[in-house]
């Protein structure tokens, strides 16, 4: 087993026992990124020199007796998190030269916990996409089969973790952007309860849905990251006063006696039969660990995608109004007056998918349509939340597939936005309700592509989700499988 095959918790033990140093670890991962990533394009910006400075500091701190939880562990951030002094593009031409003057709270908290930052990870432009193909910096490839997409929008994070380029990464999830790429790349990813992880410094897409979370190789590793990431932040007005938690400490909670709901709506037409089979096998496994399986109903899941494509673009069109070519970001050289400066800078700076969402958002918010679309969608959002409330009165968790299909081929859906949107049919309702959900690897297709199952919990059940994920991973080895990197390199 090579150094990069260890997960975060293992590497932490090796560092604590002083069997390796942070400098060795950082050097090893930087070297691996340089030799493997040209075929995956999971990184947009490397933090090479600075990472080594941080690693040296971590080793000194350990020698001085520091016991910071994540001291010397290398990670990478999705390029949506503002990093002081380090370019932050959000996958867009608009921010090609943007150097944030401050750190996102997530960046600050993980740095305070002792992590070393290897670089910034590729993503769909402004987190709008499910395949990573909307990135201005090139599409990321799936490490299990480089003809396939890694999913999105946190596709760079998922591909880098799956390819062992970094032991863990951050992601963000507005409609499935942590869970769907985690499923496509065979890693573990948590979308926390809305308000548990600060959004300060995370470039906004749809503020009522956006939530940052960990992406790693196991539930145990995700819990380690959550210990550091979660917590109340007065700089984010939607941060929850009780956001903090003891995620690692709660991992040993037994599965025995838990009531786990299965919604047949998640196994309807359009679900790949191989995924259905593997997820049902995983449910049987949870049952054999002592859970009781209970049928539940989520009747409004069928319209979740429709409500989402009103609300998310509406919020995005407002959030992205700040990009005007004046204060930061791309500025057109082809404008004679202020109006043209705005219009040209935005046309040149934004890619086709971002422009589409801004147009849809502006349309549904425009005079005469607001009630029919925006208010209607907010009401449907209430109904979706009610579905979950009713279900969680009967069960502790709900389980189902994370995605209707395994990873699809590059370019398969780029000309048909709606077919791309439907890739998130099982993940979107969770964001609309604000509840937490976890992707766990639970098998492979005959073609060798990863399959993910999704565990959904009630508000603040993040710890429970990770504990059940940990128990499942103690009993199975799907999360330990790794892509054949010799082939990737060839």
């Amino acid at each position, binding site marked *: 087993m090579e150094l990069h095959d260890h997960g975060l918790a293992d590497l932490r033990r090796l560092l604590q026992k002083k069997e390796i140093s942070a400098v060795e670890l950082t050097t090893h991962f930087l070297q691996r990124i340089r030799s493997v990533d040209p075929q995956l394009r999971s990184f947009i910006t490397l933090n090479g020199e600075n990472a080594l400075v941080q690693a040296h500091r971590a080793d000194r701190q350990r020698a001085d007796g520091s016991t910071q939880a994540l001291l010397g562990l290398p990670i990478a951030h999705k390029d949506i998190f503002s990093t002081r002094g380090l370019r932050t593009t959000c996958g867009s031409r608009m921010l090609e030269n943007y150097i944030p*003057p401050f750190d996102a709270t997530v960046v600050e908290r993980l740095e305070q916990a002792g992590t070393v930052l290897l670089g910034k990870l590729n993503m769909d432009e402004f987190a709008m996409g499910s395949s990573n193909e909307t990135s201005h910096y090139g599409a990321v490839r799936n490490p299990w089969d480089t003809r396939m997409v890694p999913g999105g929008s946190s596709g760079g994070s998922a591909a880098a973790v799956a390819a062992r380029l970094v032991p863990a990464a951050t992601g963000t999830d507005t409609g499935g952007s942590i869970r769907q790429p985690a499923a496509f790349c065979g890693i573990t990813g948590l979308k926390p309860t809305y308000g548990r992880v600060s959004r300060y410094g995370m470039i906004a897409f749809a503020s009522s849905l956006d939530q940052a979370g960990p992406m790693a190789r196991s539930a145990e590793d995700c819990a380690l990251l959550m210990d550091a990431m979660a917590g109340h932040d007065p700089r984010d007005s939607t941060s929850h006063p009780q956001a903090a938690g003891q995620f690692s400490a709660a991992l040993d909670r037994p599965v025995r006696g838990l009531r786990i709901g299965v919604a047949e709506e998640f196994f309807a037409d359009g679900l790949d039969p191989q995924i259905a089979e593997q997820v049902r096998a995983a449910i049987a496994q949870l049952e054999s660990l002592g859970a009781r399986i209970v049928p539940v109903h989520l009747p409004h899941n069928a319209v979740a995608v429709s409500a989402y494509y009103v609300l998310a673009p509406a919020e995005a069109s407002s959030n992205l109004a700040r990009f005007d070519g004046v204060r*930061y970001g791309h500025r057109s050289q082809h404008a004679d007056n202020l109006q043209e400066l705005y219009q040209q800078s935005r046309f040149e700076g934004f890619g086709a998918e971002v422009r589409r969402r801004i147009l849809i958002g502006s349309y549904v918010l425009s005079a005469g349509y607001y009630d029919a679309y925006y208010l209607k969608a907010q*009401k449907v959002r209430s109904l979706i939340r009610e579905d979950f409330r009713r279900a969680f009165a009967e069960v502790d968790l709900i389980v189902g597939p994370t995605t209707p299909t395994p990873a699809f081929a590059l370019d398969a859906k780029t000309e048909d936005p709606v077919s791309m949107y439907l890739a998130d049919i099982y993940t979107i309702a969770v964001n609309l309700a604000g509840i937490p959900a976890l992707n766990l690897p639970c098998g492979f297709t005959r073609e060798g592509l990863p399959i993910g199952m999704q565990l959904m919990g009630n*508000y603040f059940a993040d710890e429970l989700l990770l504990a059940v994920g940990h128990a499942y991973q103690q009993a199975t080895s799907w999360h330990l499988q790794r892509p054949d990197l010799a082939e990737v390199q060839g």
Partner: protein
Amino acid sequence: MSFTTDTVKRTASLARLALPEADLAHVAQQLEGILVLIEKLSAVPTEGVEIMAHPLELQQPLREDRADGRDLAGRDIYLKNAPVSADGLFLVPKVIE
């Protein structure tokens, strides 16, 4: 079809987004497809349903209306990212002749 090229033009103008004339028909067709997807909402009965303003029904916290230290970190830092600036100000094309 609700999304004509005129609708696209009007919406793009509201969004301060230039779109080349040649792209309008294609964009209209794609937006129409999205509109068909979101129109499914009209079939959902929502009489008497309240809108959902916040997942956890929290009130928006308020703080004193005063700049904190972070906001005052210095305009030079913020101007560094400005495409064009001079004398501590953001520059835009001339608005008044």
